[in-house]
């Protein structure tokens, strides 16, 4: 019989673009697995449920997948939408590999069946603080968009930076979907920050970068992992030059991902987004775990996931006893000549 994997992601709403990327990439991985004969002799099929990054829709989407009897679930972009579903998947004992969402609250609410394939916020905060120190930034302005993901990251980073002896010049919040950041920019400038850390997504990040530079802000700009999108560089244009990004492992940075990148573009007619590589890996990971479990027994799959020692496009996936990544997969990159290049 076929093995059914559920994909849960925002296919509509503000973050539809990311969700579509996730679905595409997981499907690509599964297709490849199937082309090689599937797992344990069975083919894998997928079914997608749209959570629109909305808690309520996420719950119905989740129970739809559960009712359809999926063997495992992958996906999840917005922490706020993933949180209430943890209980559903947990009660049903379904293995769930979370691709994008990485709020630390997920760790607390996990019932043991969920795995975070993305590094959590505190890992990113650590990476960020290291980067600040290396560049000699002493006064940082942290800006988020008020949603679970970015405000969590902002808070963690601020705390980490303060305990590392840094100073937080300002902690600002903007509204998603708004275009004008000038008031916040003015405030940041007047507070004398020597760098700005933007923790939310690329749309706002690009606008903020542009407006900071336009207002003559000379300091450093550092972006959280939600900004890794080709759209960021397009929109920010020359203002984006020299900006740091704590990147999740994206196709552009990964030596082994060139094929994937090309194939993705060929299949879907668009560039692979930030989470495409990781989504692809998670697709592979779940197939790998089922293979190792040698059955579709969900307990066995969970055990197999716990014991993962997986190397994919994006790097190594090994879980801690809290089902989070052992090693952070964030890597600082810098925009040079309209491209992200690794920071030495």
């Amino acid at each position, binding site marked *: 019989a076929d093995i059914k994997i559920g994909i849960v992601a925002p296919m509509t709403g503000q973050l539809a673009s990311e969700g579509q990327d996730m679905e595409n990439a997981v499907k690509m991985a599964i297709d490849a697995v199937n082309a090689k004969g599937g797992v344990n002799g069975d083919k894998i099929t997928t079914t997608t449920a749209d959570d629109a990054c909305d808690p309520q829709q996420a719950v119905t989407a989740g129970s739809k997948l559960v009712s359809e009897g999926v063997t495992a679930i992958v996906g999840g972009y917005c922490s706020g939408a993933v949180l209430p579903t943890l209980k559903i998947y947990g009660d049903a004992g379904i293995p769930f590999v979370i691709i994008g969402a990485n709020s630390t609250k997920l760790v607390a609410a996990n019932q043991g069946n969920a795995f975070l394939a993305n590094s959590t916020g505190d890992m990113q905060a650590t990476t960020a603080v290291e980067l600040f120190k290396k560049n000699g930034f002493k006064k940082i302005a942290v800006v988020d968009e008020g949603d679970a993901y970015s405000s969590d990251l902002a808070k963690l980073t601020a705390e980490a930076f303060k305990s590392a002896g840094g100073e937080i010049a300002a*902690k*600002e919040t903007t509204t998603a979907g708004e275009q004008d950041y000038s*008031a916040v920019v003015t*405030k940041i400038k*007047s507070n004398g920050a020597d760098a700005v850390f933007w923790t939310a997504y690329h749309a706002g990040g690009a606008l903020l970068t542009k407006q900071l530079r336009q207002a003559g802000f000379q300091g450093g700009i550092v972006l959280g992992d939600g900004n890794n999108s080709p759209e960021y560089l397009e929109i920010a*244009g020359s203002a984006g030059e020299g900006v740091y990004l704590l990147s999740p492992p994206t196709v552009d940075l990964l030596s082994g991902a060139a094929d994937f990148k090309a194939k993705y573009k060929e299949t879907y007619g668009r560039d692979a987004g930030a989470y495409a590589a990781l989504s692809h890996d998670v697709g592979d990971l779940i197939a790998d775990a089922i293979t190792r479990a040698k059955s579709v027994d969900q307990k066995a799959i969970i055990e197999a996931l716990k014991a993962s020692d997986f190397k994919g496009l994006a790097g190594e996936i090994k879980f801690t006893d809290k089902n989070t990544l052992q090693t952070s997969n964030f890597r600082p990159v810098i925009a040079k000549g309209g491209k992200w290049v690794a920071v030495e």
Partner: protein
Amino acid sequence: MTLDLLIQQLVNGLIVGSFYALIALGYSMVFGVIKLLNFAHGDIYMNGAFVGLIVFSFVGIWVGNGWLGVVCALLVSMLVVGLLGVVIERFAYRPMRNAPRLSILITALGASMVLNGTALALTGGRHYAFNTDLGFAGVDISTVHITYTQMVLVAASIALMAGMQAFVSRTMYGKAMRAVSIDMGASRLMGIDVDRVIALTFFMGSALAAGGGVMAGAYYGSVHFFMGFIMGLKAFTAAVIGGIGSVPGAMLGGLLLGLLEAFGSSLPFVGSEWRDVFVFGTLILFLVFKPTGLLGRSVVERV
């Protein structure tokens, strides 16, 4: 707050405010004439930006990415999206003319979702760059830098609004708009073609929103299918602050809202995450004391 900071926030507020005002104006006009909270207005703004971007990238081949390109985009988009507004009115709102007001409100919501859903389906939710080379040149007032683009932007929206005000208060058609808003039946008896007046109102309101969309797209440099949502809300708020239905009111309301937001971001003691609480809180308090907005007419019913 230092003086420079104050001036800078004032400038910031005025610029966002003039966008709000422009969009609020269309909102207010449509509301004025058919008492409809046109939820689709924000999406019309978004459509305007997209049409503008398409035109801009197209004409850019010949005229470059400078002012000329932006002006072309602006004019074409205003025309096209103005007509879109007329089409929406014709097919979504006109059949509802005698329906209860709330049903029309829901229809407007539906129209908004249709525009937004179409844009999502067509763009896949991507953000598009709207890259112009208008540059940052401008004048400096102590540490405050004001670009020529910003000046042109504010001037253009003020000019558009002044034109609109003159139209509504001076011309016969403007009076007809107000008459239609008060009593459609009686307006017919004056020889006013009500359908045409309403269509014209939608055309003008939508064209203004489209103009705002293109200007915002070019100024901020990005266009996105969701950009109209927040703007629609802001415009609605601005229109109400100013006194819904009033043209100069929409203008004042927009500017005031822009300023409230700018200063709300720099409140002492609390961070900018409280900005909207400050803005809406002020708005509510304001309405308690001035229940008809800044320039709205008091509607004491004669009994």
